[in-house]
């Protein structure tokens, strides 16, 4: 039966459009219940025995939630206890319209076999479809559709149930009107809270209930703390007229009373607006899209460099006076010159709330069920949740979702989602840092795995025919020890004409991952493999990453080869790319390769090949440095992990060998050659990587620091910087140069992927190359897969597909890759930090020498070269009068009592693990030398924790 759906819509240009959709009704939509004998369904979803212990509904029943219940109580529905739920199409559509994340979660639940969730397409069912009636609002119509469908189900189950096991349907709604109407028509209907509270077997579910509107009134205090948010229509009008600006809210990590709003301007231009004070922040949460009104210029302030933490447990709604003091302290500290555009949040355009990891602060009142939750991410405010299991949750890492932030509440209200495990345990902490950095780390789904090649896998004759046979070449790979995902191998041999042939062979991942399938989409979403200490989160399933794609020795593998003919001065005479089959003769570690090169007695093919490569690499490196490539420094730490407990037992900074740089040189060369090739072929859609030159102001800190030691650094060009870094030495301070390079690294911009059609600046500043891309690690980076595909098309080895040539899509992909890349780096750092803590936990207190890296208003940041560890030494304390501090921004120097701290000063500190705040366990450093009375501590053999006041951060 054909019906048509008609609705009117306003078009973008202001016109009005009438849209008519055809809508077909059918009578072959089955109910999905095991009980039903009438419906001719092949398989059923809903169980016959749909029992749940409830003191409201003692009979077996199916649950039908309405849209608002799904939207607000999705966390409850996700609980494994809740089963046999009918999701109506009406509900599904409304949810999809209103919240994409909830929709996705709902879809996942429907696909989950264990949940017995059945999606009933009532809108297409002949008996449950209803048309909107005159005078009925869209919501009323949907409510009626839900009631009609529920009615249909109860009738349907009644007639089909022969053995009278009394199966019923229960409608859940929080809407009073809807409930009443449903009761009138004889349906079983409950409020969601009522129903969940009735589940006797599972009292913990009550905690997951999101606070509904009428619950929130309970918390009403007389005082309105925040200004009202403007309605969306006024915000839009304001943005149009220029009274407000729209931007992304970024809370400050160090100061809970301060934030910036990042406003994306036209083109590349973007500005930041400073927001200061609770009132002005006006309930915005990190990452929200907000509307901001600029304050008049005379109220502009400068960002404070004070580190300020919200001490929420101690003070609650009634202790604002102290807060006001803190806010005042902020204001006064504003230096006249450094004022920045300042504004206030007037409205929220889009909330970007997600579930947050963190820990519970148990309320001091014993019986209280209301507790504050402290997220692990300091940029997220504390959240007030209601739970009866506070005592069990204490000491656990939990996830909490925000439900809302009323204007009379100091903190947002939320609810408990799930527990991740005990804090401090390695697995829990790993889970937390993966979640907090948005790293997709679930196991690969069946859909993804279904695209893996069948084992045992061999190279087919067809593959062989289309590829160049390079199995006879002496190819070998050089990697760090323990590496199982080998994506590059090299060879070098002398040709008959005296020239050298050098080949870089990269795993041909794009042969296995075909565009557009589930595996490809998953890899594109993950973007990169994430390496944590002792754990690797793969981008592609392990069979590929560690076996089929990995260029292990003495097996035949598919490769994408880049082969140059060079003369002995490392000048490239010819470049060609080909898909090939190789058979690596050896997988070496850097150290092994180095040994072979150095061992003059060895003279086999592999060693000769390595020596040839090494010789060329040295020339290439020299040339590159002459062109102005930067050699920067950052300390990388390696843990020796105990094989049984998996706890770190020793820690050392990574050493670099000649062979490291040998491999690196050829990878750079391959990347540059490929970048040039794909850009020549596809000027509009090549996936490239650029490293923008930093704005001159970034170098301020470096220049000041160098100047304080009497060294001049030129930053006009990369070359000048590289040269001046090379000559920067201070007598009696051998570590100075490394420190400078560490500082210089911090001045740099992030390198990013981009689509060549969307940008005009391709320059790679750090490598001093006009064009660059990533080609050499397709197993662990998705960008390389795209580059492989482009290159394969360019040499006519593979066919193209539409998305590859679409620069908008490429650009969107590049953005995701950049985001994932950044997040994986953060996750990596967080993992190192966590393992460092574990290490120091086992080591107790240590005294170490370090250097001042930065000087802040109330602290210095110290680097311990031995551990590659950075820590903060605070000079002020919350609950006692601190020493006299004079901060000079020009130096920058910090004068503590008599002593003046400068960048690069050598200090001695004690290092210990501060476990006083289990959520943010951290390495604490206290000063030993120079001795400043009242500030420094005696070199401890004793426990220092007892002496120092608690420094919480």
């Amino acid at each position, binding site marked *: 039966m054909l019906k048509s759906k*008609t609705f*009117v819509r*306003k078009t973008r240009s*202001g*016109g*009005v459009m009438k849209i008519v959709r055809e809508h077909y009704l059918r009578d072959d939509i089955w109910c999905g219940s095991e009980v039903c004998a009438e419906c001719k369904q092949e398989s059923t979803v809903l169980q016959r025995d749909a029992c749940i212990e409830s003191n409201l509904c003692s009979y077996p029943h199916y649950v039908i939630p309405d849209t608002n219940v799904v939207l607000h109580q999705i966390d409850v529905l996700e609980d494994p206890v809740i089963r046999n739920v009918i999701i109506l199409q009406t509900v599904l559509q409304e949810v999809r319209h209103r919240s994409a994340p909830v929709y996705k979660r709902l879809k996942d639940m429907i696909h989950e076999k264990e949940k017995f969730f059945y999606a009933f397409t009532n809108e297409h069912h002949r008996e449950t479809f209803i048309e*909107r009636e005159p005078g009925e609002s869209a919501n009323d119509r949907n409510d009626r559709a839900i009631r009609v469908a529920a009615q249909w189900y109860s009738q349907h189950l009644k007639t089909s149930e022969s053995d009278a096991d009394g199966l019923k349907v229960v409608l859940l709604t929080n809407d009073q009107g809807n409930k009443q109407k449903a009761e009138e028509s004889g349906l079983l209907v409950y409020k969601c809270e009522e129903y969940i509270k009735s589940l006797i077997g599972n009292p913990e579910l009550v905690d997951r209930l999101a606070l509904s509107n009428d619950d929130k009134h309970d918390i009403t205090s007389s005082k309105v703390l925040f200004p009202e948010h403007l309605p969306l229509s006024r915000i839009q*009008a304001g943005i149009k007229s220029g*009274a407000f600006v729209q931007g992304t809210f970024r809370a400050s990590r160090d100061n809970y009373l301060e934030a910036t709003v990042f406003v994306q301007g036209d083109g590349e231009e973007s500005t930041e607006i400073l927001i200061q004070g609770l009132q002005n922040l006006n309930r915005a949460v990190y990452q929200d899209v907000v509307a901001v009104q600029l304050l008049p210029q005379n109220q502009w302030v400068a960002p404070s460099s004070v580190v300020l933490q919200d001490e929420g447990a101690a003070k609650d709604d009634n202790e604002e006076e102290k807060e006001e003091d803190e806010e005042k302290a902020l204001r006064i500290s504003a230096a006249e010159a450094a004022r920045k555009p300042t504004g206030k949040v007037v409205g929220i355009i889009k909330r970007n709330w997600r579930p947050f990891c963190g820990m519970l602060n148990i309320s001091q009142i014993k019986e209280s069920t209301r507790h504050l939750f402290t997220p692990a991410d300091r940029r997220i405010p504390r959240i007030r949740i209601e739970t009866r299991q506070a005592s069990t949750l204490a000491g656990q890492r939990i996830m909490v979702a925000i439900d809302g932030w009323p204007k009379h509440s100091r903190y947002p209200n939320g609810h408990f989602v799930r527990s991740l495990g005990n804090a401090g345990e390695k697995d829990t902490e790993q889970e937390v840092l993966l979640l907090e950095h948005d790293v997709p780390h679930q196991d690969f789904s069946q859909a993804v795995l279904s695209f893996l090649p069948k084992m045992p896998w061999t190279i087919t004759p067809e593959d062989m025919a289309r590829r160049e046979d390079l199995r006879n070449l002496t190819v070998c790979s050089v990697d760090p020890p323990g590496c199982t995902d080998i994506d590059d191998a090299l060879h070098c041999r002398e040709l008959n004409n005296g020239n050298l042939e050098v080949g870089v062979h990269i795993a041909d991942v794009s042969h296995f991952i075909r565009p557009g399938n589930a595996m490809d989409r998953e890899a594109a979403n993950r973007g990169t493999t994430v390496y944590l200490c002792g754990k690797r989160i793969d981008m592609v399933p392990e069979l590929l990453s560690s076996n089929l794609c990995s260029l292990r020795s003495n097996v035949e593998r598919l490769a994408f080869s880049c082969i140059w003919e060079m003369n002995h001065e490392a000048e490239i005479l010819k470049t060609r790319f080909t898909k090939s089959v190789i058979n690596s003769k050896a997988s070496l570690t850097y150290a092994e390769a180095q040994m072979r090169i150095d061992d003059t007695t060895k003279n086999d093919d592999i060693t000769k090949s390595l020596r040839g490569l090494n010789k060329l690499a040295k020339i290439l490196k020299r040339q590159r440095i002459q062109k102005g490539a930067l050699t920067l420094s950052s300390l990388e730490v390696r843990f020796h992990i105990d094989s049984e407990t998996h706890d770190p037992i020793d820690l050392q900074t990574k050493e670099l060998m000649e062979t490291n740089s040998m491999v690196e040189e050829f990878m750079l060369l391959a990347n540059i050659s490929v970048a040039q090739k794909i850009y020549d072929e596809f000027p509009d859609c090549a996936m490239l990587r650029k490293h923008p030159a930093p704005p001159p102001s970034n170098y301020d800190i470096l220049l000041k620091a160098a100047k304080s030691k009497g060294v001049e650094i030129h930053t006009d060009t990369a070359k000048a910087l590289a040269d001046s870094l090379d000559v920067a030495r201070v007598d009696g301070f051998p570590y100075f140069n490394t420190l400078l390079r560490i500082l210089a690294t911090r001045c740099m911009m992030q390198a990013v992927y981009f689509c060549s059609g969307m940008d005009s600046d391709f320059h790679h500043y750090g490598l001093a190359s006009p064009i660059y891309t990533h080609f050499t690690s397709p197993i662990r980076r998705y960008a390389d897969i795209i580059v492989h595909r482009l290159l394969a098309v360019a040499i006519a080895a593979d066919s193209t597909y539409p998305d590859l040539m679409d620069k908008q899509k490429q650009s969107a992909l590049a953005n995701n890759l950049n985001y994932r890349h950044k997040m994986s780096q953060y996750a990596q750092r967080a993992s190192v930090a966590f393992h460092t803590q574990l290490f120091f936990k086992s080591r107790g207190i240590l005294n170490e020498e370090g250097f001042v890296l930065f000087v802040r208003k109330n602290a210095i940041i110290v680097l311990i070269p031995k551990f590659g560890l950075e820590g903060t030494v605070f000079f002020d304390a919350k609950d006692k009068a601190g020493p006299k501090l004079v901060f000079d921004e020009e130096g920058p120097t910090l004068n503590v009592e008599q002593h003046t701290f400068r960048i690069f000063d050598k200090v001695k500190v004690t290092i210990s693990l501060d476990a006083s705040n289990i959520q943010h366990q951290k390495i604490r450093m206290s000063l030993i030398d120079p001795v400043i009375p009242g500030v420094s501590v005696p070199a401890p053999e004793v426990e220092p924790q007892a002496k120092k006041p608690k420094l919480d951060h």
Partner: protein
Amino acid sequence: MATVQVSEAEKVYILHGIRDDLRVDGRGCEDYRHMEIETDVVSNTDGSAKVTLGHTAVLVGVKADIGKPRPMVPNEGYFEFFVDCSANATPEFEGRGGEELGTELSNTLYKVFNNKHSVDLKSLCISAGEHCWVLYVDVLLLQCDGNLYDAISVAIKAALFNTKIPRVHISADEEGVKEIELSDDPYDCMRLNVENVPCIVTLCKVGHRHVVDATLQEKACSVASLIISVTHKGTVTCTRKVGGGSLDPESIFEMTEAGKRVGKALHAPLMKLLQQEESLGKTRQKVGFLG
């Protein structure tokens, strides 16, 4: 214009018949052929009607869109007409063959309908000088068997009767920026008062007499015809002479009088029919194009 070839003998036969008030198909001189009307036939328009008159068939669709009022009349909306002579109607329309006729027809339709006496154009105004409804009237000729004007005018009147314009509200914020808000209820709409919308009566001078609703054969025997638009009260709002021949003042007067009479008689049953159809609501069985 669609024409047929008629032999001399046939012409004489038709002429003599009309002289005796007896036409080839048995009608009197002031009789219309059988007429069928159905409204709401095209769902993605705001109002539509299909009219068949003998073998002549036309389809009219009305689309309402928001536009800017004409500067001279800032508080009125307006019509736009477009007549599409599809080659379905007659092979002569193929290519650009129907263009001239289409323009001629639409020019006449402007004259007849686009004035405040036919429809209250002020009701189409949303905010004076800024927004108004523009009614795009699209006429599609499906088949030509003479007397296009009358069939089109009846179809337009029916389509306008059927037109449902979505209701809009103007909201202004404090800066005075006006925003058009659309009602989300599809039933919440504005109807037009079509009482005063005229119908066109075409009178063909055949010999010394004139006939209403001439077929193509009769048309071939005629040298000139008079187009008269008449309201339900019998008021003539527009007249136009088409055809190559001339009309003497005497017969113009006669024809006008006849036109008034016929037009007046046409309106009453038309309105009755339309209201009857409307009252059926959703229970009405739609005939559409295949019925």
